Structure formats: C-alpha cells, structure tokens
C-alpha cells in the first residue's frame, strides 16, 4: 500500500508541477502584456529535451545527474500530501529525514555539474551553495521553533496538531520568514542568482544537453514539489487532498507573481538580505515561542 501511495505522490508531483510551471509562464506573460505559451508548453519542452542526442562529460557528470534525480525522487516519495491518508510512510516522514534526503539531490547536482569542468558551472554551483547557506539558516530556526512548540518533528503529526488553527496564524512571523526562504529555495526572481542566464550563462546547467537537461528538469520538478509541500503541510495545515492542491496552487501563484515583478539580487546582497531581516524575525519568533507568546 505504501509503495502505491509513494508512486501516486510521484505522479501527482510530475503532472501538478509541470502544468503549474506552464501556468507560471502564462501568468508572467500576462503581466508583461503578452499572450504567452500554452500551459502544456513545459511538457513539450521536457519530452523534446529527452528526445535529443546529448554529450556526456565523463562518469562523474553522469553519476551526479543520476544522484540528483534519485535524491529528489526519494524525498518526493515520503512527503505527506495534506493528511495521514496521503502519507506514504507515516513512520519516516520526519522533518530531519526529509532535510537530509533532500540534501543528497542538491549535492549530487553540485558534484555532477562541477564534474563538467566548465568554469560557469563551478561559479553557478558556488552561488547555489551560498544561497543555500543564506536561506537555510532562518528557515531552520523557524522550523526548530515549530518543532519545539508542537513537540514533534513528524510532518503528519504537525498537520494533525494544526486542526485548531494554521501555524501561519499561530506564529505569523515564522510563516513570513518561511515563505521568504521558500522563494530562495524555489530560485524565484530576486533570488535566482545561481542560474542568472545573462551573467553566468545559466550557471550549473551550462554544459547540460538534451537528455541530461531533461533529467535535471524532472529533478527540479520534484524539488519544487517537496519545497512547496513542506510549506503547505507545516504552515497552512495541510487538509484533505483537494484542499492541499488548492493551497499548493495558491502558494505557487503567489511566488510567481512576486517573482515576475522583481529584478535579481547580486550574491552578496542576497546574503545580506537573508541574514538581516528574515534572520532577525526568525530569532524573534523563536523568542516568542519560548516565552509562550503565540496567538
């Protein structure tokens, strides 16, 4: 049963996030007063990329791409989708398990892309890891205070404990900080420094051709699923499968709309930003939780 649920997770993640990416391109086009591509454009892009004849850059490169995909797939399998009914592995959906598994994918990507030997790729990877340093610190402090408050790190138990009210309303500061960190995780506009097509030629992806591009696109799809699902489960109280999907779409559209009107930070501006206001708010949130001043 758990295996079927895990597979169902993957199917939902694939179709949901790919169509949402297409819809994001449409939204961005409408904001810029264009018509924009159809919503299924990203499916076409993905299948086309998988149909090309790519170049490899050695076995470290191949292995890195597979490791990235495997890490993201494994993480997407254990994410609860809104409630205990849609939790594939109720005993191992611990927040720390998810964070560790998720790092496997990111490290695989870093290893493979540096293995391509292109200097732009190395710069891109170093930027991506710096950005991780930026957003993970406030995010983890907020998550620690959440875990301390509810005395559990299991995601589906967190969802059940939020029956009385969403965590976003219980600790609004934490919710806001988590959303700002989420923008960085998704690589949305003010924080898309690691791929910056105009400056570093799309960074880590610079040497990816054809099928490799397709595989990393699939990895990206599952990463987006994991990141937004965590936010929806921990701060918006999950809910039944339908409500979970609605919240997922709302969070995604909000992130896209914010990102489509903002320019890009430089790397040190990003770090200063994350370690300034969001980090301060995260500490304040932790203090409020310790003092018991929650709503």
């Amino acid at each position, binding site marked *: 049963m758990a295996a079927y649920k895990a597979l169902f997770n993957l199917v939902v993640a694939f179709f949901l996030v790919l169509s949402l990416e297409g819809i994001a391109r449409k939204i961005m086009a409408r904001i810029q007063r264009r018509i924009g591509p159809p919503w299924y454009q990203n499916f*076409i892009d993905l299948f086309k990329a998988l149909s090309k004849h790519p170049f490899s850059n050695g076995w470290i490169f191949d292995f890195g791409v597979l490791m990235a995909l495997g890490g993201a797939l494994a993480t997407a399998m254990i994410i609860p989708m809104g409630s205990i009914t849609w939790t594939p592995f109720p005993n191992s959906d611990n927040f720390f398990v998810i964070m560790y598994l998720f790092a496997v994918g990111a490290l695989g990507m870093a290893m493979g892309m540096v293995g391509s030997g292109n200097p732009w790729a190395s710069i891109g990877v170093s930027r991506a890891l710096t950005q991780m340093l930026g957003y993970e610190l406030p995010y983890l402090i907020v998550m620690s205070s959440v875990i301390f408050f509810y005395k559990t790190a299991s995601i589906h138990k967190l969802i059940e404990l939020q029956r009385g009210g969403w965590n976003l309303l219980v600790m609004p500061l934490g919710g806001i900080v988590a959303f700002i960190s989420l923008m960085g995780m998704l690589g949305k506009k003010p924080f898309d420094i690691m791929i910056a*097509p105009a400056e570093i030629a799309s960074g880590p992806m610079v040497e990816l051709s054809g099928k490799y591009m397709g595989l990393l696109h699939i990895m990206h799809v599952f990463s987006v699923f994991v990141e937004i699902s965590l936010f929806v489960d921990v701060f918006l109280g999950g809910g039944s499968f339908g409500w979970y999907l609605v919240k997922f779409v709302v969070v995604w559209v909000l992130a896209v709309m914010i990102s489509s009107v903002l320019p890009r930070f430089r790397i040190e501006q990003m770090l200063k930003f994350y370690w300034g206001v969001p980090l301060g708010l995260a500490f304040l949130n932790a203090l409020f939780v310790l003092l018991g001043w929650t709503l």
Partner: protein
Amino acid sequence: MKERTIWEQIADSFRSRSIWMLHYCTGCGAMELPPTMTSRFDMERFGVAPMATPRQADILLITGYLNTKTLRRVIYTYEQMADPKYVIGFGSCTINGGIYFDSYSTINRLDYYVPVDVYIAGCMPRPEAILEAFNYLMEKIRKGEADGWKRYRENYEWYKQNQIRSLGEVYVHDEFHE
C-alpha cells in the same frame, strides 16, 4: 529521403513545438530580435525561447554578416550543439554577402560552412518576417525536412574542406583537459 519511424515522427512534432534558440549576434540583424522576443511580437507563444549556451540550444541564429574571425566561433558553437540542430540564416548577408559582397574579410555564402535550414531574406528582416521564418521552420521540422544536421554529418568532409579553405585551420581546443 528515408522513411521516419513512428517514434521519430512523435519526437519531431515535439521538437517543432519547442525551439530553444541561441542567438549568436554577429551582425546588425540582431537588432530585430529584442522586439521579436518582447511584448510586441511575443515569440514565446510559439514555444521559442532564448537559451544561454549552445549545449541547450536547438537552433542557431546567424544574424547577418560573418567575417572570418567570427566564422570560426560560429563553427565551434555549431559543433557544440546537440543533434538535432537547425540553423537560420538571417538577412541577405548570409545568402550571398549582401552589401558586404566584395569585402576582404567577410564570407559570402554561409551554406558552404554550416548547413542552413531556413534563410530569411531582407536587409534587415522585420520581426514579422522572423516569425514567418520560425513558423516555416516548425513546419519543416514537423515534416522531417529540416535535415541540416544529417547533411552536415554525411558531407562532413566537404564542409571541412570549405572551412579550412577560408580559415586555414579549424581545431576545437579543449582547454580544460589539456
């Protein structure tokens, strides 16, 4: 022409709807690309999107005259792209030399050096003409007629000879592994 298998036909119809382009801006024609990309003409609605590197790109836009120095880079760029790849020659300079036909440092006919799938006539072509060319290229890809990359493989000796005749040497240096 060989019959395509059913998989190739499906793949070709995907390829025709999603064209990632690398615009290596060699000449003045590149000036017409920004309006084609942005809100006025909006080429993203056809699935055409700009890409940053040759590895990811499907089509190479040669936007105008090529002198022998840029030609070398264009050939390197073309050889770095993943098959299937397509080339659009942009403006009359790529067809027969245009107004630079008697210049000492430019090449006259692009088709001698890399296989061109679609030419756009005009000096310089307007965004409408560019969109028309993209649609024509999509049609050709869907029917499996855009086979420049196959021609380049089959007649590699001939292309190489032409390249060496104009450039002296063509050798892609692999600086990282040397």
